[in-house]
């Protein structure tokens, strides 16, 4: 893959650039949250249900307890991005490990690992995530672990397919003849060549992870002492007849963030395979 033309293809894709811009803003907001809003976003700071643009101190208004919506939103970005990245990273790591071992060794190991993968694909992911969080106890970290444990099957299948085709190649035979160990061949020889499609799948997993996190925290299974977008939406449920913006605003933040991640992912896919991109 030609490095420069890859960058060129990505940077001429308007959707991808828009996604990258939004995503950068969300990341910046998450990183700068303690500077922008130093206090606890769950503190009551104003009159309850101040509408957006009504009071300049609270540009997006306050919720039913009088907590600053904008502060919650910015701090919520931390939880969403943390869970999205950690869960996707964990899922890809597990997937690579399972898929590489299955594809490389084949035989009964492959058979056993594929049955395991099939099992995880059969149990509805969200229900399994609920069970895992129920066992580990609610919290941001257990939510991230639970999402990773229900999202690794895609990367595992892709990695296995790549390994199945790559292990037949001559460079693998060559390093086997040189007497390299299995670990060296798997991680140093084959994996670097198999990585591109796995990384492209990564953006899809991050997007899905952020959506699952929002649903779990909406159901109250994340850390109750930390602001999350899902929790803010749940908080707005009690007042949505009179003040629907309390639920609407954090949901819109989820939508924008996931959309940005998807757009960047699409841009990466199209730039990586210019021929199979959109016609």
């Amino acid at each position, binding site marked *: 893959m030609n490095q420069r033309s890859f960058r060129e293809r990505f940077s001429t894709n308007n*959707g991808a650039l828009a996604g990258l811009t939004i995503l950068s803003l969300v990341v910046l907001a998450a990183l700068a949250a303690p500077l922008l809003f130093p206090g606890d976003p769950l503190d009551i700071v104003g009159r309850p249900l101040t509408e957006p643009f009504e009071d300049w101190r609270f540009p997006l208004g306050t919720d039913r307890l009088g907590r600053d919506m904008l502060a919650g939103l910015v701090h919520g970005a931390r939880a969403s991005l943390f869970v999205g990245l950690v869960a996707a990273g964990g899922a890809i790591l597990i997937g690579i490990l399972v898929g590489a071992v299955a594809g490389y060794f084949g035989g009964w190991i492959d058979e056993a690992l594929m*049955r*395991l993968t*099939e*099992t995880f*694909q*059969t*149990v*509805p*992911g*969200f*229900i*399994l*995530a*609920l*069970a*895992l*969080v*129920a*066992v580990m106890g609610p919290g941001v970290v257990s939510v991230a672990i639970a999402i990773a444990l229900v999202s690794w099957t895609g990367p595992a299948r892709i990695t296995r397919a790549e390994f199945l085709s790559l292990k037949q190649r001559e460079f693998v035979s060559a390093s086997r003849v040189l007497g390299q160990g299995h670990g060296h061949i798997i991680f140093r020889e084959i994996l670097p060549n198999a990585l591109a499609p796995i990384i492209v799948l990564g953006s899809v997993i991050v*997007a899905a992870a952020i*959506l699952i996190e*929002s*649903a779990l925290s*909406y*159901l*109250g*299974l994340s850390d109750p002492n930390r602001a999350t977008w*899902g929790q803010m*939406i749940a908080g*707005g*449920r009690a007042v*949505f*007849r009179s003040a*629907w913006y309390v*639920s*609407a605003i954090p*949901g819109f933040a*989820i*939508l*924008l*963030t*996931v*959309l940005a991640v*998807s*757009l960047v992912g*699409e841009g990466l896919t199209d730039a990586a395979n210019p021929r199979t991109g*959109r*016609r």
Partner: protein
Amino acid sequence: MSASPDRDARAAGFFAGRAAVLLRRRLAQALPVILLVLVGNFLLLKLAPGDVIDAYVAAAGGGDRAFVAQLRAEYGLDQPVIVQLGLYLWKAVRLDLGQSVLLGQPVLSLILERLPNTLMLMMSSIGFAFGLGVLLGVAAARRAGRPEDTAIITLGLIVYATPGFWLGLMLIVIFSVRLAWLPLSGIETIASSLTGWERVLDIARHLVLPTASLALVYVAIYMRLMRAGMLEVFGLDFIRTARAKGLSDDRIAYRHVLPNAILPMVTMLGLQFGTLLGGSVVIESVFSIPGIGRLAYEAVVGRDLNLLLGIVFMSALLVIAVNLIVDLLYAHLDPRIESA
């Protein structure tokens, strides 16, 4: 369709034979998966702090120590772990999923009681997603590269990024609170004593918003798949032949391309079913629909792990059953496929 009743009967016999082979093979594949689900469930039960008896005692507000020990012995919880696993599997084989501590009823009957509501939501969502997805996908593929196509694709990306539960809340605000067109929650009007078609209509009205919130993401997915499938088939040789014969664009699109492009989507129906079932947890919670999704949520909140794992097991069985049906349907629709 058929030339003679004789050939019809032969085809039916052929299909039945293939279906039996397919059924056997799929069941043989499903057994290890079911076993692994059960072993996984058992592991989670063991990993969770406290066991079933602790949950009972907590629910009963404490208990006599000797009685607790007797209960443990009765449940086999004083046995070695491997014996406990055997007991657990043996119970599961007979579909004995134990008692729900939270609701004081057998887990199986709780699930079966709630299942019809979830199945109704699933069916309406699949129908909606499949129908609208195919329509939009065909429309986009026939205008590939034009502004309408780009608009449909962009809309699809936005829908894909929308959390279903939030969409549900927003739809409630618009259609139930502001416009008062549709009911706010539940599966039917309580104590309405409606019967026959009136009751069906009432349930249908209750299903509109939950279906839309659950299925819209899948509309986007099917739309993209359908578009890609249509474009692929459009490029094949037999379409060129059809064009050369002078067939109209409409006829080519609907009679030649669509049937071929729609086949792979049938498999997707099965693959997506698990995700859809998972999505019903949060949608049923938003709309207060008494289905197994909401039951799972109640189980988590009420710390009833046994009930939750019962739902995990039953939902896995449901996913296996649906995939089996989809496979049979697929074999029926596409005779070229030898039960791959």
